[in-house]
């Protein structure tokens, strides 16, 4: 790896390019995380500008900019803010810094390298929606991010940017830091709220109540991703129109993408939203610079570990949600995982499925039992102990988690046409379906790799050989007397 910038006292990861820099503009300064550097580079000007305008106007500016949520769902933040019921107080802003999607590490960099930008984004959001309390939830494992955000927050309090009467405007806000305890599912907003309240991180069912109506402590709550909020200072400084001038109408601005796997230069890139294609990202010298060792690309995951896979057939798709969905996947949290021709596909799928099975919170039966069941069948197959029937069983178990058609990409080689996003699910949150997504993608796009791994079923067995001995077969004809 050879980063374009100078050596930084940060964990490596960010690679600069020629894209306009909205959220990573300070990343190459050695002291990018300090208040001094932040102030020297236009810091806290956005909140100053916001405080000079009525909150509704600030809210309008953000709504006009169409900042898509960067946590995974891609919902416009300004619209989300508008879902809070009027005149219900208190209300809260919760910042989702529990970035744990496999392949995703952009929020960590934002918190480590420019914590003040995030804090300023929180201030702008709080001012726009009329909040006086913000909870900043940072993933438990991100020690450096925690340290830098905490230091930055203390400095910001001391300098009067946070706390009572911000910059003499009469607007007061408190930001409360909270460290997670290490659970993937807490990246889901309702589970994050449960965790903040001191409960087990388990998702709440929505509907009936979305956090905007009934959230933290039963009060209206906005949950925003770190990157989403980090965009706000730039928007307030430069205006929504300038923001919308970058990218496309439906996906304006830039976005951060974390690339991992078999490319020459894996790392985090700030790219133009909506127009940059996967081919640009993976092959251009400005970005990843091609597949490792000049090998052929076999498959890639376009939006974090839970997204259905793409093959080279989809390389020319841009980072534009409205185009990715119909093609059978999602942009998710901005993580691209690349697999070259040497990749053992069943093993790669097992690696991802094992993660989601392990991270199931245990609440919904299909995820708790089905995820582990998938993992166990798949490891049998990977180890060469599976049969043909196990491959059907994988899809059958998956159908109990996600009934109906599961999204997948088109594939010319196999003559497949795309099945669009999203899917139905029997679970509350996406952890259960995420355990199935890699299995389904791998089986659908690379069936021959599985066929080669399994042996034929023993023909002397009857149609239901998988049934263990001693379990009654026909219960359905019985009537229950009690």
């Amino acid at each position, binding site marked *: 790896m050879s980063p374009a910038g100078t050596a930084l006292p940060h964990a490596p990861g960010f690679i600069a390019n020629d894209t306009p820099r909205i959220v990573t503009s300070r990343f190459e300064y050695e002291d990018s995380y300090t208040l001094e550097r932040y102030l020297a580079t236009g810091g806290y000007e956005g909140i100053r500008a916001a405080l000079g305008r009525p909150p509704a106007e600030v809210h309008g500016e953000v709504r006009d900019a169409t900042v898509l949520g960067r946590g995974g769902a891609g919902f416009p933040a300004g619209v989300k803010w508008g879902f809070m019921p009027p005149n219900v107080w208190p209300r809260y802003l919760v910042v989702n810094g529990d970035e744990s999607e496999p392949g995703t590490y952009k929020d960590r960099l934002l918190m480590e390298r420019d914590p003040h930008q995030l804090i300023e984004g929180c201030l702008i959001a709080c001012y726009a929606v009329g909040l006086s309390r913000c909870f900043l939830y940072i993933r438990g494992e991100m020690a450096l991010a925690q340290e830098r955000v905490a230091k930055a927050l203390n400095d910001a309090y001391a300098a009067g940017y946070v706390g009572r009467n911000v910059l003499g405007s009469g607007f007061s806000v408190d930001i409360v830091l909270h460290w997670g305890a290490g*659970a993937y599912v807490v990246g889901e907003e309702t589970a994050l709220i449960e965790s903040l309240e001191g409960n087990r991180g388990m998702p709440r069912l929505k509907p*009936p109540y979305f956090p905007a109506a009934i959230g933290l402590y039963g009060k209206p709550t906005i949950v925003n991703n770190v990157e989403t909020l980090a965009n706000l200072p730039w928007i307030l400084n430069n205006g929504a129109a300038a923001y919308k001038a970058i990218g496309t109408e439906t996906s304006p601005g830039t976005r951060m993408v974390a690339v991992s796997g078999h490319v020459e230069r894996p790392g985090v890139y700030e790219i133009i939203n909506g127009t940059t294609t996967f081919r640009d990202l993976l092959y251009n010298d400005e970005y990843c610079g091609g597949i490792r060792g000049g090998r052929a690309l076999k498959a890639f995951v376009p939006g974090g570990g839970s997204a259905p896979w793409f093959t080279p057939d989809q390389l020319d798709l841009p980072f534009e949600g409205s185009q990715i969905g119909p093609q059978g996947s999602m942009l998710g949290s901005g993580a691209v995982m690349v697999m070259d021709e040497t990749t053992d596909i069943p093993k790669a799928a097992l690696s991802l499925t094992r993660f989601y099975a392990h991270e199931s919170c245990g609440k919904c*039966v*299909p995820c708790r039992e089905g995820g582990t069941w998938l993992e166990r069948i798949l490891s049998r197959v990977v180890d060469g102990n599976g049969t043909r029937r196990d491959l059907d069983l994988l899809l059958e178990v998956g159908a*109990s988690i996600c009934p109906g058609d599961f999204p997948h990409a088109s594939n010319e080689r196999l003559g497949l046409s795309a099945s669009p996003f999203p899917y139905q699910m*029997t679970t509350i949150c996406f952890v259960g379906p995420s355990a199935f997504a890699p299995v389904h993608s791998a089986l659908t796009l690379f069936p021959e790799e599985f066929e080669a791994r399994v042996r034929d079923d023993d023909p002397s067995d009857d149609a239901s050989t998988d049934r*263990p001995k001693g*379990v009654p077969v026909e219960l359905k004809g019985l009537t*229950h007397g009690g």
Partner: protein
Amino acid sequence: MADQPTDAPPALTITVNGASVRCAPGELLIAAAERAGTYIPRFCHHERMKPVGMCRMCLVDVDSGRGPALQPSCMVTVAEGMVVDTESPRAKRAQEGILEMLLVNHPLDCPVCDKGGECPLQDQTVAFGPGESRFVEEKRHYEKPIAISDLVYLDRERCILCDRCTRFAKDVAGDPLIHFIARGNETQVNTFPDHPFASYFSGNTVQICPVGALTAEPYRFTARPWDLAEVESTSTVDTTGARVVLQSSRDRLVRVLGLDSEATNWGWLSDKERFAYEASAGPTRLVEPLRREDDEFVPARWSAASSFAAEAIKDKRVGVLGGARLTVEAQFAWSAMLEQLATSVIADTQLADGLPAQLVLGLPRATIARACAPGGVVVHIGADLKEELPTLFLRLRHAIQNDGVSLIELTPGATSLSPMSAASIHPVPGALAQAARDAVSGTGGAAYEIASRLLASGRPVTVIGGRGNLAEDASFAAEAISTIVGEVDNVRFLPALRRGNVHGALELGFTPGFGPGGVRESTGNQADAVGILEAAANGAIDTLILLGADPLGDVPDADLAQHALAGVANLIAVDLFMTDSCRYANIVLPAAGYGEVDGSFLNLEGRLSPVAAKVTPPGQARSDWMIAVDVAMSAGVDLGFDSLDECRMALSGAVGTFAPVDWSGLARAEDGQLLDLTRDWVPDLVPAVVAPPLDGYGLRLVVDRTLWDLGTMVQESPSLAGLANDAVLSVSREDFERLGVAPGSEVTVTSSTGTHRMAVQSSDTLPRGAARLPFRHAGFDARRLLAAGEAVIEIRVSAN
């Protein structure tokens, strides 16, 4: 769901499997469908708890206008025009999938599982399941059942993690002692290390467990569900009158389940109500009449025993203690018999540990539903309801947490409800009456101001009043209750007496100053329990009858009780067990107990509900009403009835309160029949006696009861007997620190009765200046500190 507006007219229509269903707004889809005859399978949903959508079994196709989608029907509230298909291929596929996954790690040890035969997982697998499993890997393994408390075992292999027990413990009981630990496929329910699931309500988790994961120690491996015979009845364990199902196998009671009665217990039971059946099923029951010859008891025939009793009653001056164990019919039969045979009768069902009868009978009576109705105010005067009337505690806790009921406490110390009370006032003994006046006027601090504001708010007020401190004269509680009821508008009273059918006994005149039907009498029966014991001790009566009373154990003045029992000429004991008091008797008559008699029970609201016989009484034990009829017969008197039905007709004819009772409909009425207890008289204000001024050195004693004590019912139930702790003197943290001793060390306690040694501990629930001892516990008998006739008990505690 109880908090749904079931009285409101159905306002919207949904379609379930093609049929129109009218629903109330806010109703859950799963409930609406069930009402319309479509049962949607479920495991985690429970109608008395908040839905969690955990098991995913109730997924059905719901179309709210945007096309059908799978939704958990336990979390979807009905909406106009909603189209629901519970049997679509997709819904069936989802249900089959869930069941297959629930079973992948379920051990399928149904043949040796107590739940087998009544197991929702079994039943729904048969009805909705795929019928076979494709899971060939090894299942999850855990240590087979682990004891999570003295009463409950947990088999984690069977558990399907539905969150019912854990939700109950946290949300309903307020004892969050069981919890999910670990996560994903390794999630399990367990206790925290060194903190057993020691909840008074632990048995409910066993009842609501949808599999055999939780089992109750008393029932484990005693019966198979298909061998059980059952009958609906009412718990006579305390005055709440919780509705129950009694289940027997081979003519032995083996299990008690809570019945969901909207009026009383909502399906919940305390562990005492659930497990104290063991006492009547136990081996220590009296099984034949016994007659004292010299210093020994010898078996007697019933005819001889009845004749002896008749002789001791006929034309004699008779005193009666007890009666709360009896059914209303038996209470009537005994009072009719005594009325006809004896020259004079003095009777008291309260053993000097209750409230003046004129308040209980005369104040306008509240119902539990009124106390718990949304938006009300409850004033609680007395001891911790969790200890005294645990099922009422659950109802009140729910009302405070969910329905906006405001609680004002006037209790000797902090209670289980204090953390959620609006105003928590803990006067030291002797200050209760004044505290009640201050709560009305709002003087004395923030809590009093809040209380005063709430009392003057015009919201419906219910006073739940009992005796919070047996070491404080009853007149303090009486005056406090009278003050609130007298000074506040829109107020009613719910008496928190705790002993069984005490309200039936009061209604039938087992109390000084009143005849049957709450009629005031200024002559005749004018002696309370203490007066009766004194009369027995000094020969003012000829015969003392103990109707299920154990004055040696229960009357605060134990010396007086002992003198009375030893001194009276004739002592007749009617009981289930040979209690200490029975040992003084001339004749002991064995009575039929819980689950062995038919009859009815009057609860604290004045609600008459049926108690039912399920098993035959052991040996020659017989129903109390039959004993009364027999004794009358032996004296040559015909009471005019010799069947339960005739007895009920006579009761309706003789006692006005019972005149409107529809006896034939009683067994069918789910919530019993609420009797009209309106009186044509108004109770007098009972002024508190004057307490001596506080001195700076002594502590004032609080003596109260706990659910587990040395009482007969608990001690005769093998599973419960060991649960009572030894008595330890509790003092406030400040007073404890002043003593400068280690927790649990022995200290010297001096009262007017002498000097005693006992263990001491610090307590965060007591106000400074108060000390607490539990009543009827091993270790130290609190009554040794009590002196008859003192308004409050002052003690001095010193470290050596």
